[in-house]
């Protein structure tokens, strides 16, 4: 149905042209799901945009053929291409929060889309929209079609997005990371929906994703891309069970397995390519300095008991009480000295709130915290010079916003040293900063640059270095790798694991990715809706989860292992 032959796309910049996609060929048949997988910069989305005719102004299809049935997509005029969009090819975007017009009811958006491509009365269009919404799993569609997008949850909103893409009966849908913004359980439902739409309606899908697990769940065929070129292509079963290309093997190996524990994360290093340069000598000073400060003993124990956090909602009526929302409900857990506690749960479960309570960024309404046996005051009572301010350090999720863009790395990293009075001598501080950079795997010269000159993974290394430079005892990592590609994720997790074991740091590791947590943690705690569902040692949890919710979480996590039972 869709045939792409030898597609090459170039982007023109002021400095010259860059080739984003080179010589890519692929086909999608009726009712087939064709997965495009690769890391960022692989050209997946560019291929999708080329098919849609929606390349940004700087992009240009340099050569190749794009055929949809008998129609040559490249020969279309701009207005013909616009006619075909929606009618024959449609698209699903990544983030359901932003892909619907907030000011129009979903009914109006559906009816408008149907009427844009067919001569059909508004009533008939509405009837079709309602039928479609019900088919897609939105109950009570007759009433809810009058609702606005903000009145739906994330998963339901993505269903509405799918309904919008589907309401004109297109032959092909380009789904660009359709489940990346969703929780695992919702992701499983949405993928199941795509699978059944392909089977029952015969819609062809191009499924763009960075997650091999998603491919394993639903794709019939898969194309592995790297740097704009095809690395491997074939039946999903074939490619995932017996990958031929070294890169595919490396990519699969880099995905942390859910079903067993590894000592280290595999790096997707293709044999014979460049390996990391070790700056062991340069790192010696920082390492000695850390040992001297932290000592050889394991980090402090963190005990939380009965932590409850309530947020005030909107007032109900003028004199009515505020409706409060309980973000954490009586959570008690202990992170043993020098171990890693993995904290898992879906979005809204209160994982990050718990981290913020420990870091004194949110005030709990009741409960008690102890760090290394001593009372750890809550936010309002923990004064600025409290010793825990130094002892407790955080690595945040988004490395792009957690470093001050206007400071040099040397300034950013030097800050904990003078702030906590650890090193008063300026030249010694500078030497330590450079040595610490070497310890986290960056060249010492990095100190003279600004954050924007680094990639996401490098910035996360800088964030780790900043945490270490305060000689911490307790490290809180809030989704430290969820903004990164698998290969980078493996590097950062290895780094964290190294540092944790070398310096005996007590660690609270928050992640929505169970496979990552299995590799990282000694103990595990599962949160659901602010309540602690299960806690205990990690390995028994993964082999035999006790709580029903934990079982669901595990079952819904996509695996790389080829497995069609989910669909």
């Amino acid at each position: 149905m869709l045939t792409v032959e030898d597609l090459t796309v170039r982007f023109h910049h002021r400095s010259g042209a860059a080739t984003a996609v080179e010589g890519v060929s692929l086909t999608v048949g009726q009712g087939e799901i064709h997965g495009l997988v690769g890391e960022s910069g692989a050209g997946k989305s560019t291929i999708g945009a080329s098919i849609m005719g929606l390349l940004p102004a700087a992009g240009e299809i340099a050569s190749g053929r794009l055929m949809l049935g008998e129609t040559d997509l490249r020969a279309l005029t701009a207005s013909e291409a616009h006619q075909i969009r929606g009618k024959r090819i449609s698209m699903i975007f990544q983030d359901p929060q932003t892909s619907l017009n907030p000011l129009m009811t979903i009914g109006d958006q559906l009816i408008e889309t149907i009427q844009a491509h067919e001569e059909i009365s508004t009533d008939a269009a509405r009837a079709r929209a309602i039928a479609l919404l019900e088919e897609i799993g939105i109950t009570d569609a007759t009433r809810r079609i009058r609702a606005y997008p903000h009145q739906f949850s994330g998963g339901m909103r993505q269903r509405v997005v799918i309904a919008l893409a589907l309401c004109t009966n297109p032959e092909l849908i380009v789904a660009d990371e359709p489940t990346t913004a969703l929780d695992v359980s919702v992701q499983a439902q949405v993928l199941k929906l795509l699978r059944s739409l392909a089977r029952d309606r015969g819609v062809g899908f191009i499924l763009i994703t960075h997650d091999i697990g998603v491919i394993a769940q639903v794709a019939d065929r898969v194309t592995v891309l790297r740097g704009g070129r095809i690395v491997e292509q074939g039946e999903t079963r074939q490619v995932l069970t017996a990958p031929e290309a070294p890169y595919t093997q490396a990519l699969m190996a880099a995905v942390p397995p859910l079903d067993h524990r590894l000592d280290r994360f595999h790096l997707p290093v293709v044999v014979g390519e460049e390996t990391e340069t070790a700056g062991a000598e340069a790192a010696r000073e920082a390492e000695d300095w850390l040992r001297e400060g932290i000592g050889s003993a394991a980090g402090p124990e963190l005990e939380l008991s009965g932590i409850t956090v309530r947020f005030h909602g909107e007032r109900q009526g003028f004199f009515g009480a505020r409706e409060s929302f309980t973000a954490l409900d009586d959570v008690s857990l202990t992170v043993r000295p020098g171990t890693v506690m993995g904290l898992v749960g879906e979005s809204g479960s209160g994982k990050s709130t718990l981290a913020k309570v420990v870091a004194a960024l949110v005030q709990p309404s009741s409960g008690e915290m102890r760090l290394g046996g001593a009372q750890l005051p809550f936010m309002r009572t923990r004064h600025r010079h409290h010793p825990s301010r130094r002892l407790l350090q955080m690595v945040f999720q988004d490395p792009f916003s957690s470093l001050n863009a206007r400071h040099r790395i040397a300034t950013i990293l030097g800050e904990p040293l003078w702030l906590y009075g650890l090193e008063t001598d300026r030249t010694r501080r500078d030497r330590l900063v450079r040595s610490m950079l070497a310890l986290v795997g960056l060249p010492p010269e990095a100190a003279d640059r600004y954050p924007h000159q680094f990639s996401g993974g490098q910035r996360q290394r800088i964030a780790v270095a900043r945490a270490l430079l305060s000689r911490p005892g307790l490290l809180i990592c809030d989704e430290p790798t969820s903004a990164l590609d698998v290969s980078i994720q493996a590097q950062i997790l290895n780094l964290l694991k190294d540092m944790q074991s070398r310096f005996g740091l007590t660690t609270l590791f928050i992640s929505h990715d169970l496979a990552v947590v299995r590799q990282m943690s000694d103990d595990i705690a599962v949160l659901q809706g602010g309540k602690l569902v299960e806690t205990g040692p990690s390995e028994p949890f993964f082999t035999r989860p006790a709580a029903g919710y934990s079982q669901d979480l595990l079952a819904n996590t996509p695996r790389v292992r080829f497995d069609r039972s989910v669909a």
Partner: protein
Amino acid sequence: MAVFILKRLIQSVFVMLAVAFLAFSLFSFVGDPISQMTGVETSLEDQARLREELGLNDPFIVQFARFTGDMLQGNFGYSYRTREPIGAMLLDRLPATLELGTVALIISLIAGIPAGIYTALNPRGVLSQSMLIATLIGVSIPTFVIGILLIFLFGVQLGWLPTFGRSGTVEIGWWRSSLFTVDGWRSLVLPGLTLGLFQLTLTMRLVRAQMMEVMRTDHIRFAIARGIPWRSIRYRHALSNTMIPVITVIGLQFGGVIAFSIVTESVFQWPGMGLLFLESIRFVDIPVMSVYLVVIAFFFVVINLLVDLLYLLIDPRLRVREAA
């Protein structure tokens, strides 16, 4: 929704009280009212009697309460200069200022919004670029210079339009309007244009920036990917999302237009409230100045309230969250 409006109303009351306090402080801090009302020949006894009669010996807080109470009852006091009741003076001047402000706002909207949309949709066009440069000049030249230039060109050189004043007015009840005669309009054009030009450039640039941002959002890209007609994408999807922040600024602008009309009114000798305020300053007519302050603040508060209500109308996310 009722709660929301009530909340805003209560906030407005506090704003008005604060402004009233500032306005009232004028009396205490800008000179002694008695010495301004009386001449050199008034005896000290008479001055003391007057002070007592006017309640100026009462504690500050009592005087302030009396001032606020009088204001609420529509009793604005008397001008030192003309000895007329200030309420009537302002009411007499109000139509001129409101008509001028409204015309200026309408000029800025009818020209500014389409220009903003055009420059947003054709960012690289020659026309867009020249419009942007022209508005840059418009922003940079002070209002009074523009007014004088316009007078020079259309009033003096070409002689098409009157150079000052407000003529051709028609009385509808107490409202003296210049909107119903050709003469009235002729005298309204130049000041309206002068006052509206700055707002126009602001509106245009704001609409342009906002629209360009909206056109890059996911929901617009999704609408394009669904093949929604371009006309609908631009004017139904994008424009409504563009207007949400723009409306706030336009609301504030209207308040600003009325307040800023002082300069324009003085250049064109337009008999509005602004001109009255300027004259009052010249004669240190404190009661008029303070009432003017309160009235302008009242306009701002009312306009802001209306803008908030308009928001509720446009943005469903702000309406009461129904269960879905």
